[in-house]
Each structure stands twice: as C-alpha cells, then as structure tokens.
C-alpha cells in the first residue's frame, strides 16, 4: 500500500494474506470456507498453483504473528476465462480458494459483503484498499509486516482509459482496460495499492457495510502521478462466484 497507514486491529477483518511459493498476495474472506483473490495470484507460469502450496493467513494485522497458524487451502477455482500467460491480459482476474475447514468469525475475522450484479460504482466515491504489499518509504519501496490501508476514490472509466492510453505510449506491454475492471486512485499519485497487495480488497461502504467492490489486480508502477490502480470489478462476477460456491 502506497501512502497508507497501519490498519488498527480488527478494522479490516476480511483481509487475508496469501503465501504462494514464496510470493505474497492478498485476498479477502467472503464466506466461512471461501477466500476471494486475484487469478494471477494463484497462477504460475500459466498454470494454477497446487493448493498445497497456498497458505492462508487471517485474523491479525502483524505478519509475524499471522504466520504462526496458516489455514490450508482445499481447492482453487480460477475464473475460466482468465488467460494471462504473458501478464498483459488481466481480464477476469478473479479466483476463489476454498478452505479445508470453516473458520468461525469474530472481531478479527469477518467476511466482506459482495455486491449485487450491476451495482453502481460512483466515481469519486472513496474506497478502502488494504494489504501487506510493499509500501513507499523515504528509502524506497519495502515489504511491510503490518497491514496497511489507504483511501482512494473510484475514477471514471474514461479517466482511467485515457491514463492507460498515455501510459501505453511510453511503456511496453501495458495491459488493456476492460469493462470487467475499474480504476481507483488520485491523479497526483502517492496513494495506491502495490505489489503484494494483489488479490486484496478494494472496499466501498454503503449503509455502514463494507462491500468488495474490487480486487487489487494491476497497475503501471505504484502511486505514480497520472496512473491509477486497476481493480477487478467484482459485481461483474457475482453469478460466477455464487455458482462456484454452490457447486463446491
């Protein structure tokens, strides 16, 4: 999380830390057996990682404490249309992980709500993105052991699209924006999600409840001026999520 703060205990109880073959990723609790994350977190070299190689941590904000008791994954369900062998196509970047045993919710572990299909993402609405990914310090980007959070607003699809078009001119292999994605961030930069946060939640809040509007997916650098974080638009996948959970 770039430009964020340490999350107080129990403030982001749906946040999940995934350990995947030594890489760090984020996720969010959506049921007592289910974790939602980004598909690219659970892919390696174009193939799904083995569920035995997925360790799930939840309930605490400090990684050192969190690592003591990992939860074992039972199965991984990647969106069938996700196809990103060269890391340039993040369309359908969503996956579900089923846990072997259910967890009991308490103040430190709680699911985040899911949006109904077609829920409005109103530009300018301030969202909350969290994770254990790299943070920006005066000495550069480092991986944090504390869960961080930062508030960034939803930006219009047009603003985001224009930003990406510009970035494509200066960079190579910049992925494309689709309708299954949305952007959040501030044009001046400095507040963003970053590596290690992917798969984690971008939460919006309505009527006192946080709901999973997005999944940290990709972006060009982190916290860069004129660039925005790109998130998987969860409401587009409500059918697939429900179906996958029911069938499994």
């Amino acid at each position: 999380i770039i430009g964020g703060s340490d999350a107080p205990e129990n403030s982001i109880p749906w946040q999940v830390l995934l350990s995947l073959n030594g890489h760090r990723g984020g996720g969010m609790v959506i049921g007592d057996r289910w974790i939602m994350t980004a598909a690219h977190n659970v892919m390696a070299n174009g193939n799904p990682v083995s569920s035995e190689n997925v360790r799930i941590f939840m309930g605490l904000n400090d990684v050192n404490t969190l690592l003591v008791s990992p939860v074992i994954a039972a199965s991984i369900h990647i969106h069938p249309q996700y196809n990103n062998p060269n890391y340039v196509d993040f369309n359908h970047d969503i996956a579900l992980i089923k846990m072997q045993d259910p967890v009991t919710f308490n103040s430190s572990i709680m699911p985040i709500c899911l949006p109904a299909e077609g829920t409005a993402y109103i530009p300018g609405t301030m969202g909350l993105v969290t994770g254990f990914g790299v943070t920006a310090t005066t000495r550069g980007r480092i991986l944090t052991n504390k869960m961080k959070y930062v508030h960034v607003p939803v930006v219009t699809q047009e603003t985001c699209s224009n930003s990406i078009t510009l970035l494509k001119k200066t960079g190579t292999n910049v992925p494309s924006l689709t309708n299954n994605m949305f952007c959040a961030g501030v044009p001046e930069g400095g507040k963003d999600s970053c590596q290690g946060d992917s798969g984690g939640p971008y939460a919006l809040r309505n009527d006192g409840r946080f709901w999973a509007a997005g999944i940290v997916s990709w972006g060009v650098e982190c916290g860069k001026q004129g660039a925005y974080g790109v998130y998987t638009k969860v409401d587009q996948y409500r059918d697939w999520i429900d179906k996958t959970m029911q069938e499994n």
Partner: protein
Amino acid sequence: LLLGWVDSPGYPAGYLPHASLNWSRCAPKGHTLSIRLMHLDLEESKDCENDAVKIFSNGNLISVLCGGREFEDLESNVNPSLLSSPGGCLSLTFHSDYSNTKRHTGFRGFYTDQDFDECNDDPDNACTHFCHNHIGGYRCSCRHGYYLDGDNHTCTVSCGGGIFDELEGHLFSPGYPTPPPHAVSCQYIISVEPGFTVALNFTDIFHIESVQTEQGPNCLHHWLQVTIPDREPMKLCGEKSPDLIVTDSNTIRLDYHTDDEGLSKGWSLDYSTHRVKCPFPGNLANGRVTPILTEYFYRDYIFVRCDQGYKLMMDGEEVEGFSTMCQSNAQWHLPLPECHILDCGEPESLLNGGVTFLSGLQNQYLSVIQYHCNEPFYSLLGGANVVYTCEADRRWRSNSSIVVRPTCIPVCGQPTTLLSSYQR
C-alpha cells in the same frame, strides 16, 4: 312277493291211492301267509282218517279237511283260519289211503303273503299313543307335548329338555295350559354365554298345587324350583305368579316336579337377557374417554384420546391408540392409560449461536425457546426474534408454524473497529 298254487297230486284229474304231498312256506317278517282253498274234493271218512289234507301253522295243526266242500263253505268257514302268525310258516300235508270208492279230484289252494296290521291285529303292539302300520311293520308316535321313549313304544311327557342358550326364549310346563299327566319331573337349563344375565318373566297362568299349612302355602308335592348358582334354590308354587325374577346369572336351572296326585295347570315364562355392566371408567387427566355413556355394558368399547399436547402412556410405554372392552366378568379388559405431556426433545444446537428457554418446562409441550446467533458476527436467518414453540407434533415450530432449521449467517462488512481519522 310270495304267492302261488298248491294242488293235490293229479289235480284236477283226481288223485291215486297212496298219494301224498308235503308243502311248506314261511311269511316274511311283518307279514302273514294264508292259503285260500278254491276247491276241495276228498274221500269222506270219520275224522278224515282215510284221505285228508292237514294244515299247520308253525307246526301246530290248525285244520284237517276231507270230503267235499262247496266254495262258499270254504270261503266262509275254512279259508279264514288258514293263516300263519306274523313271520310264521304254513305247512300242508296230503295223503290218500289204499282205495277209494270213486275217483275224487283232490284240492286246489292259492297261497299268498300279506302285510300284517300290527296296529289293529296285534294287541301286543304297545304303542301308548298312536300306531301307524306299514308294509312289513309299524311305528308308534306321540301326542304334542310327549316324546317317544327309547323303546319306540312308550310316549313320555316332553319337558322342553335340553339347554336354552338363546338370548331370549319361552318355556312352559308340559302340556301347558292343559294339566299334564301326573308324576312329571322336568328339568330346564337356561345357559347363555357369559356376559349376559337372565331375567325370568312369568306370564299368563301360574298354577302349581300347594298345600296350606300353618305357616302358609307349602310346595310339598308339586313345585317349580329355580336354582341360581351361589344362591339358595327357590321353590315356587301356588297360584300367584312370581312375575319377574332377575337372576344376575347367566345360568339358571328350573326343576318342575309333580307327584302322581293333585292338579297343577302349570306355568309359562319368557326369559330375557341383559348384558353385564362394567364400572364407570372414571375421568382421565388431560384426556377424555369416548363415548360418554351413563352406563357401560358387556362388549361396549371405550376409547381414550389425550388432549392436544399429550400422549397416551401404558405401563411406561407410549401407545398409538387405546381401547378397552367391557368383559363378561364385568371388568374392563385393560385399565385406563395416562396422558403425559409431550416432549419435543432437546432443541437442535445452533452452529455459531445458542438457544434460550423463554417459558415452559424444558422441552415440554408449549415450551418456548429462542435461538440466537453469536452477534455481532452472525445473525439469525429470518430475523433475530424468531421464537420456537414445542408443538403437538413434537416439533419445534416457529411463529409461522414452519419447521425451519435455524441458521446463523455471517455478518459481512461490519468490522468492530472502524478506521477513524480526525485530521483534515
């Protein structure tokens, strides 16, 4: 059929000197055999010592004939006696001596058997009432109110006899209302199935000779004795009808006795039966007995139903239904069961929640419980205030009568700690 001709040798040309004939036939049982001489022309001699025809019945000489006889004489004087006893034999012998002064034609007879009329012709038939003859025998019969004894001749007073086992009936003394012959000794047994009691209702004439003594009428020579098990026998006589006798027994014995003197016209009665009565089954706590009757009799059934929320218990076991029958011994075949309150059992435990008893004895009918979830992390599907009541079907049902397994669903997106920032 036994019949034919018997002729003297040479008939009708005439018999020779020293001629002879031996003839014999026997009648079947119940028949007699007779010979009817149609023609007789023998030499006449004193005592028929020269020529003669002799006829024997069972070896006994019944007729010796000689000389000449006219047909009319034979018909009126000779033939009626040429008869065997019933089932007996007739024999006939004929002989002629050494000479005859003139030629005689001899005799011709026709023999035949015929039924013997025992009723009219046998003074020993001994039918005491009626006699009926038939070919080969006879049969006796009796007037109404009498039966033919084992000797098939003697008529004895019929006393009704046997056992009266119908649920109602009519009995009367022999010959009633005609006075019966003297020295009657009759026994009547009324025996109906257990569970019924007999009532005797004397009707019409009651007339049994009694003897007046200082103590009043005495049934000394004629009486009707009523014997009820486990009670002293009652001797009845006189001209006053006992009317109704309720016996409370299913077996009654009546002995009617007259000696060979005096006069009793007799008696008649209708008997009826009633079912024995069982005790009132009593009241049942938390249930009811049906049907509700003022009295319960043999073979009556009662059923027990528990009030809603109660179950039938017998000997510590629950039973689906209950009925009992009033038995012949005036007792119910099963004692009344009890109605115990229903129990819905322990409510199902609730994952991530619990259950609270709101009212009632634990788990019993109409007990009320409320499920709750571990808030604020779980909430009850369908609302927080759903209470469940132990219903009559032994299930915990919610207010809406629907059996729903309560479920705690996770509360999402509401952390207990909110990010707060007061800096602007």
